[in-house]
């Protein structure tokens, strides 16, 4: 379960594209002031970075505050620069345009945004993107293999395990994790408990459970 998180910050910068600046000038100035504190305290910025950042700040006022990260999303390394407060869910949806992952409550209460990080299902709305530099992330787009749906996806389809479909991506990410877990017993009672963080307002729970049963038999 635990993995080695002691990776150095990547210093490669090629291929970076500027973000569209969206903050006000006031916020920008405030941000610059604070970023000096962070860089000084962290000591994790290379000496050459400050100069590069000045250049970038000409075209992207937020660049000075950004942190370079690489997310390995569905098997593809995606190098980018993000603001410290960029939430993993928003980066996946808005920057990487992987819109299968849904924003529900945005507070870790509904499970619609669930993705896998290094094999574990988590709520992407409660993660900063900067926390996941170098991590392997699987979204619902990564469940299928060469266009072939996974056993869980097929079972959700065949068992009609949804109505509106908004929670479905999160349901399938948690279901996939639960069915692969060595710790969670393979029983409908244990599955109900393990799936309780994924809310379905349409109430498709019965069919979600049927889908998990079917997927567990075909997997």
């Amino acid at each position, binding site marked *: 379960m635990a993995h080695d998180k002691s990776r150095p910050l990547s210093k490669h910068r090629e291929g970076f594209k500027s973000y569209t600046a969206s903050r006000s000038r006031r916020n920008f100035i405030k941000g610059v002031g*604070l970023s000096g*504190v*962070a860089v000084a305290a962290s000591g994790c910025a290379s000496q050459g970075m400050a100069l590069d950042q000045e250049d970038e700040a000409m075209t992207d006022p937020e660049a000075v505050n950004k942190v370079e990260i690489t997310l390995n999303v569905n098997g593809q390394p995606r190098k980018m620069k993000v603001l*410290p407060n960029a939430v993993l869910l928003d980066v996946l949806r808005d920057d990487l345009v992987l819109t299968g992952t849904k924003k529900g409550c945005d507070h870790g209460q509904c*499970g619609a945004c669930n993705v896998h990080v290094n094999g574990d299902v988590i*709520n992407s709305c409660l993660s900063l993107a900067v926390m996941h530099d170098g991590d392997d992330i699987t979204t619902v787009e990564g469940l299928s293999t060469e266009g072939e749906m996974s056993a869980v996806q097929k079972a959700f389809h065949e068992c009609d395990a949804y109505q509106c479909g908004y929670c479905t991506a999160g349901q399938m990410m948690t279901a996939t994790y639960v069915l692969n877990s060595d710790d969670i017993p393979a029983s409908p009672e244990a599955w109900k408990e393990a799936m309780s963080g994924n809310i379905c307002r349409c109430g498709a729970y019965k069919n979600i459970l049927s889908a998990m049963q079917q997927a567990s038999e075909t997997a």
Partner: protein
Amino acid sequence: MRQFSYVRAESAAQAVSAKGIEANEFLAGGSTLIDLVKLDVMQPETVVDINSLPLYDIEELADGRLKIGALVSNTALAYHPVVKEKYAVLSEALLSGASTSLRNKATTGGNVMQRVRCSYFRDGISPCNKREPGSGCAAIGGHNRSVHAVLGTSEHCIASHPSDMCVAMAAIGATVVVKGPQGEREIPFTDFHLQPGNSPQKEHAKATDELITHVILDKPIAGNRSHYLKLRDRASYQFALASSAVIVSVEGGAIKEARLAMGGVATKPWRAFEAEQSLIGKAPSAQAFQQAAEIAFKGAVPQSQNAFKIPLGKNAVIRSLKTVTA
């Protein structure tokens, strides 16, 4: 969400040095911090990410205690073979909390630092002495049915402590290891969380620039049986209205050792030392359990909507004691 600066700490010393002032926050799993920053209830200037620190291990010490790294996830801790075998009450408590995905995020140190679920604390507007000292407490006389306490309250704050894990740790007995600018020190678990008193904004015995690095569980009681009973409005994925963590060993028909802590009903993970003492040497019986429950809730103060927690909490204590002595 508001802007903040970000520091990825590469060592505990660097984390402590970067934390410095009160307005900065450590970031572990993020399930409390990011939630509350989105609500603007927590307003960090700098977020100090500690996820690169080597605090992911669970280690059995030579003296029989169990040393848990602050970054061990709730899932990893709950399913660890030693925890399942020797500290079943902790495994049960962890698995009764939150959801599969949140337990994968939430860490041991983070759960110790979990903030209260009082809606007046979380709304960012209402009077709340915890969020804004001196502003008052909207929960007193307001909506206080589910996440407010009957034990350890004050006229300034009545929010209950939300953690299940901490209730089990209080019962087991544990030590919180913190690292600060002056070095490392150990704080007994039952002293770590503070009752609100006159300063509900001060929640812990650790200083603002001290980092939790480990929690060390006491050596398990020989021959014990343990149980965590959690009572709530839903069957799953809900905070406790009342909970009871019990650890009991019986020898020759009499209770030899007993540990009892309660959750959902108190402003901190509530160890009931006096109630434990009342059980020692007695044969397990309905009468003995009833007496322990009465002692455990002695001095309980009901609020306008949560008086039901007193009988509910007593019944949780009684039923959990029955379960481990049946």
